[in-house]
């Protein structure tokens, strides 16, 4: 446990502090603009991190991650438009409070709850990741093969309404991941004679294309900001007594958020909604929920922020990202030559523990910035998104070019962006693509190493307790669509069908 302290000094260095301040401010701004998300901001930043020190880039990423979750609450409360998907449940109780003339109070509740959620999450990361690393030292190629398969299966099946699309998305990602030379034989695969592809596809190019281009295109369809929001910041600020009274809600939502964060495939939106439902269910007086109950805002915001750092536990400890933001964080580390997993804790403790402290420190930076700059952040709602869209695409293009000094990378980014746009329209989720690109090569190499070790004996793949548990977990995940189908079958007579679902 004491090893965590090794990261404190690097995390509070001047460069790290500046990076966290910039990242947090950028995160709140990004979250406050409907259509911009943490993934977009991080994907945009990724190509520029090549030139940064590890804790500078990770500090900025940590600030963006935490800040954007709170930023998403601003339009959710003031305009009833969730700034990020995670803030959906905040729209239930935020706008009624604004109508009562308590807009400032509502924003302060969201800020306090977001901070509490981020703190709970960062502490859970510090407490849970080191023991998981100790445990994972027992893992060999067989276990890593199953961990990679579990990560890809869970994200592919849990994120998509249609399992076929989720798995196909994961396989497309694996195909991207194996482009280039086979690491074990040196054979070129899926290069199609293009010399620039022989070294493989940069993860930054893929992430920028997938997570920055489609949202930038979506911003061309204007969001109705609903007029002037300057008058919304009315009423009294939150009092210390009122903030303290929220602690049972914050603890409950924080724990839910942490659990959801650790689970692969889940995300901040699920954490926010589940926290809201649980707090409402357990409340003695439920009559005010949906009509301006501060506990509703606190539950949603604490839950979605508590998902943040905890989602990085499997990423840092095992090298297995559970969602797209974790994959982006992993991408930022890979760019720095840092391979998440047990070796990272032994070789670069200052970076890995420093990053954990950054997740904690950015929570408090967010609190201070949120109180001091509320009026400024609210102005972000007035920015015309149609002009922001080309600016984002230009920064993506220049950033991608600058990272590798290659125009081929920019064309690849466009290709991935276009493919992501079309695939998303047909209901294919994008997170499995990234997971496939990162975990696919890990799964392939582990599989081949395991075959060599076990001398081709298939029973060697289920010879340890960890392997058996992982296989059972994979079977459980595979059974989830079947359970969904059975439930849907029971409700066949009901008239309403979710419009976006293309369930297969």
């Amino acid at each position: 446990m004491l090893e965590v302290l090794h990261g404190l000094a690097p995390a509070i260095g001047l460069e790290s502090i500046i990076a966290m301040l910039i990242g947090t401010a950028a995160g709140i701004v990004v979250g406050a603009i409907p259509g911009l998300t943490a993934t977009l901001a991080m994907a945009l930043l990724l190509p520029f991190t090549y030139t940064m020190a590890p804790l500078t880039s990770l500090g900025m990423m940590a600030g963006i991650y935490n800040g954007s979750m709170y930023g998403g609450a601003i339009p959710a409360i003031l305009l009833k438009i969730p700034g990020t998907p995670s803030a959906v449940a905040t729209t239930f109780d935020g706008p009624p409070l604004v109508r009562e003339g308590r807009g400032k109070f509502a924003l302060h509740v969201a800020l306090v709850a977001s901070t509490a959620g981020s703190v709970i999450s960062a502490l859970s990361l510090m407490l849970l990741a080191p023991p998981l690393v100790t445990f994972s030292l027992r893992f060999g190629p067989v276990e890593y093969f199953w961990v990679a398969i579990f990560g890809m299966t869970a994200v592919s099946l849990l994120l998509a309404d249609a399992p076929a699309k989720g798995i196909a998305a994961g396989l497309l990602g694996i195909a991207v991941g194996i482009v280039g030379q086979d690491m074990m034989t040196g054979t070129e695969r899926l290069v199609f004679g293009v010399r620039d592809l022989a070294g493989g596809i940069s993860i930054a190019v893929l992430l920028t294309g997938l997570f920055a281009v489609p949202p930038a295109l979506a911003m061309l369809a204007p969001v109705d900001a609903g007029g002037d929001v300057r008058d919304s910041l009315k009423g009294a600020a939150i009092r210390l007594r009122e903030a303290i009274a929220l602690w049972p809600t914050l603890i409950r939502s924080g724990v839910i958020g942490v659990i959801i964060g650790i689970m692969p495939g889940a995300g901040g939106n699920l954490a926010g909604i589940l926290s809201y439902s649980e707090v409402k269910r357990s409340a003695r007086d439920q009559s005010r929920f949906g009509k301006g109950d501060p506990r509703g805002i606190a539950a949603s915001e604490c839950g979605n922020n508590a998902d943040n750092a905890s989602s990085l536990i499997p990423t840092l400890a095992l090298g297995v990202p559970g969602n797209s933001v974790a994959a982006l964080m992993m991408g930022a580390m890979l760019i720095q030559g840092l391979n998440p997993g047990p070796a990272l804790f032994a070789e670069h403790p200052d970076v890995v523990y420093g990053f954990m402290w950054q997740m904690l420190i950015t929570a408090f930076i967010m609190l201070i910035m949120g109180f001091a700059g509320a009026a400024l952040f609210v102005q972000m709602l007035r920015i015309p998104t149609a002009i922001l869209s080309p600016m984002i695409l230009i920064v993506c293009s220049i950033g991608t070019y600058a990272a590798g000094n290659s125009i081929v990378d920019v064309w690849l980014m466009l290709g991935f962006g276009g493919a992501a746009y079309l695939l998303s329209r047909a209901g294919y989720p994008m997170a499995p693509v990234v997971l496939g690109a990162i975990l696919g090569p890990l799964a392939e190499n582990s599989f081949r190493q395991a075959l060599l070790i076990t001398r081709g004996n298939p029973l060697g793949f289920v010879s340890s307790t960890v392997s058996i548990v992982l296989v059972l977990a994979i079977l459980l995940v595979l059974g989830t669509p079947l359970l969904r189908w059975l439930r849907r079958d029971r409700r066949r007579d009901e008239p309403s069908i979710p419009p976006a679902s293309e369930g297969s």
Partner: protein
Amino acid sequence: MSPDQDRTVSLVERLTIHGLVGLTGAVILWDTASLSGASAIFPRAIGAALICLAAISAVYAFRIRSPTTEEVGLAMGLSALVLLALYIWTSVRIGFVTSSLWFVPALALLGGERRAVHIALLTIGFVLAVLIVFEVLFKQPLPPELILGEL
């Protein structure tokens, strides 16, 4: 066409996209046909699985009449992608910053922004910011810029 109608995804479009996914699988199979040994196992399995999964998705596409999407409408999205491709193409020839001078207004107009002065001021401000950040602060080696007389 109302914004709501624009958010729907037609059956033809969905079938085309599923077809492209299947085609990707076929291309992977074709490319790895010449490979042998362990290097070929994974890509071949992926190619075959993609074809099967695309076929399943195509069959199930008939069961849903008009699903909606959060993405921008097809015409606008494809137009924006074509403009982005043109931007990249011109950037190699006249520079990223110079190309931004036409790309920002073009895409803003496509997005429905009609305030000409607003667009002009924001474009110039953005181009200056990009110049300062990339050329002065980061000193990034970018393609030669027409507006800087580097061509």
